[in-house]
C-alpha cells in the first residue's frame, strides 16, 4: 500500500506541498509506514518485555488511529468535498488544520513515547511503583496541552468545509448542492 501510493506520486512530488488534501493522504501513508515498522519492532520480545503496558504503546496507538486513519480519511473527505459544486471550501483553513493536527499529534506521540520509556525503565528497576507515577506527571500534562493544537486543527478543518472564499456562492441549503451531492 505504501509502495503503491508513493510510487504513484513519482515525478509529481511537488503536488504534495501545494495540494492540502493530498498532503493529508501522503502524511497518513508515512504515518502508516512508521506505525507498521514500530508495531513489528515492539512485538520483538526484548522490546516488548520492557515496554508492554507502558505509555509507549498509547503513543503507538495514537499514531495508528490519529496519524494513519484520520489523516487518510481527512484527505479523502477534503478532496471529494472541494470538488462538489456549491460546497464551501477554504484552502487556507485546511492548510492550517493540517499543520495544527500534525503538530498536536507529533507532540502527543513524542511525549507518550518518551514518557513510556521512562515509565518502562522505572518499572524494570527496583524503584517503588509511585516513582513511575511521579516521573510521568510532567509527560501527562504535556500530553494534555498537546490536545490544544490538535482540537484547534479539527475545528479549523470543520471551518474549512463550511466557510470559504466561495461563501458568496456556496450554500448547502441550495438545491443545486443537494442535486450535486446526490450525483444528479
Amino acid at each position, binding site marked *: 500500500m505504501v509502495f503503491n501510493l508513493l510510487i504513484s506520486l513519482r515525478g509529481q512530488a511537488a503536488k504534495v506541498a501545494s495540494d492540502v488534501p493530498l498532503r493529508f493522504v501522503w502524511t497518513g501513508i508515512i504515518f502508516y509506514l512508521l506505525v507498521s515498522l514500530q508495531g513489528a519492532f515492539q512485538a520483538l520480545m526484548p522490546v516488548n518485555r520492557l515496554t508492554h*503496558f507502558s505509555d509507549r504503546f498509547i503513543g503507538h496507538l495514537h499514531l495508528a488511529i490519529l496519524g494513519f486513519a484520520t489523516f487518510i480519511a481527512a484527505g479523502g473527505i477534503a478532496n471529494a468535498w472541494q470538488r462538489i459544486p456549491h460546497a464551501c471550501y477554504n484552502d487556507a483553513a485546511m492548510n492550517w488544520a493540517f499543520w495544527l493536527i500534525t503538530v498536536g499529534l507529533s507532540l502527543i506521540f513524542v511525549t507518550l513515547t518518551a514518557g513510556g520509556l521512562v515509565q518502562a525503565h522505572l518499572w524494570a528497576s527496583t524503584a517503588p511503583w*509511585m516513582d513511575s507515577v511521579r516521573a*510521568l506527571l510532567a509527560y501527562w500534562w504535556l500530553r494534555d496541552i498537546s490536545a490544544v493544537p490538535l482540537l484547534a486543527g479539527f475545528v479549523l478543518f470543520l471551518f474549512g468545509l463550511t466557510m470559504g472564499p466561495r461563501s458568496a456562492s456556496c450554500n448547502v441549503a441550495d438545491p443545486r448542492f443537494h442535486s450535486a451531492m446526490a450525483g444528479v
Partner: protein
Amino acid sequence: MKTANRHRVFNSVYLVIFVAGIGFFALSFYLLGILPGQELQKEIDAGAPADMADYTAQEERGRTVYGREGCGYCHTKQVRFVAEDVVRWGAPTQAWETRFDYPQLWGTRRIGPDLARESGVRSNDWQLTHLFNPRFVVGDSVMPGYPWLFDGDAAKPTADAVSLVAYLQALGRPRIVSGYDDETAPAPSTMAA
C-alpha cells in the same frame, strides 16, 4: 483450438482464485477465531484445580463494578512471564486463573500497579479508604476517588464498594488456595530468568 485452451486456462484461473479466496478466508477464520479458543480451553482444563471455586455472587457483583468504573483502564490483572513483573507481584498469571472471568478484564495499560495478586495484600479498610480517596493512603496518587460508592464517608461504603473490595480480595485467591505453587514452584522462576 489454441484460443479455446487459453480460455480454459483463464476460466480455471478464476476458479482457483475463487476457491483460494474462500479457502483462505475459512482458514484464517479457523486459525484466528476458533483454534486459539480451543487451545486456551485445553490449557485451562489441563491446569485448573478440579475443585476451583467460582466467584461468589458478591464478588461477581464487584467484578461488574470493576468493569463499570473503568478500573481496567489503568490497572492490569496479568503478571507477565518476565522477571520485571515477577519481582513486583509474584508468579506469572496462568490461563486457568481467569477461568471464570468472562469477559476477561486483563487490561492493556498500567498507570497503577497490577492487581492479579491483590488477594490478602491489603486490609479491607485500606481498600475502602483508598477507593474513597486514594490520597488518604497514597500521598501522590493520581487515581480518582470513587465517592459515589460511599454514603459521604469512607466508613460508610455502599454495597457496590463492599462488593468491589470483596472482588479485589478474590484476585489471585484460587492460586493461593490450590497449592499450585507448591507443586510447580521451579517452573515460573526458570521461565522468568
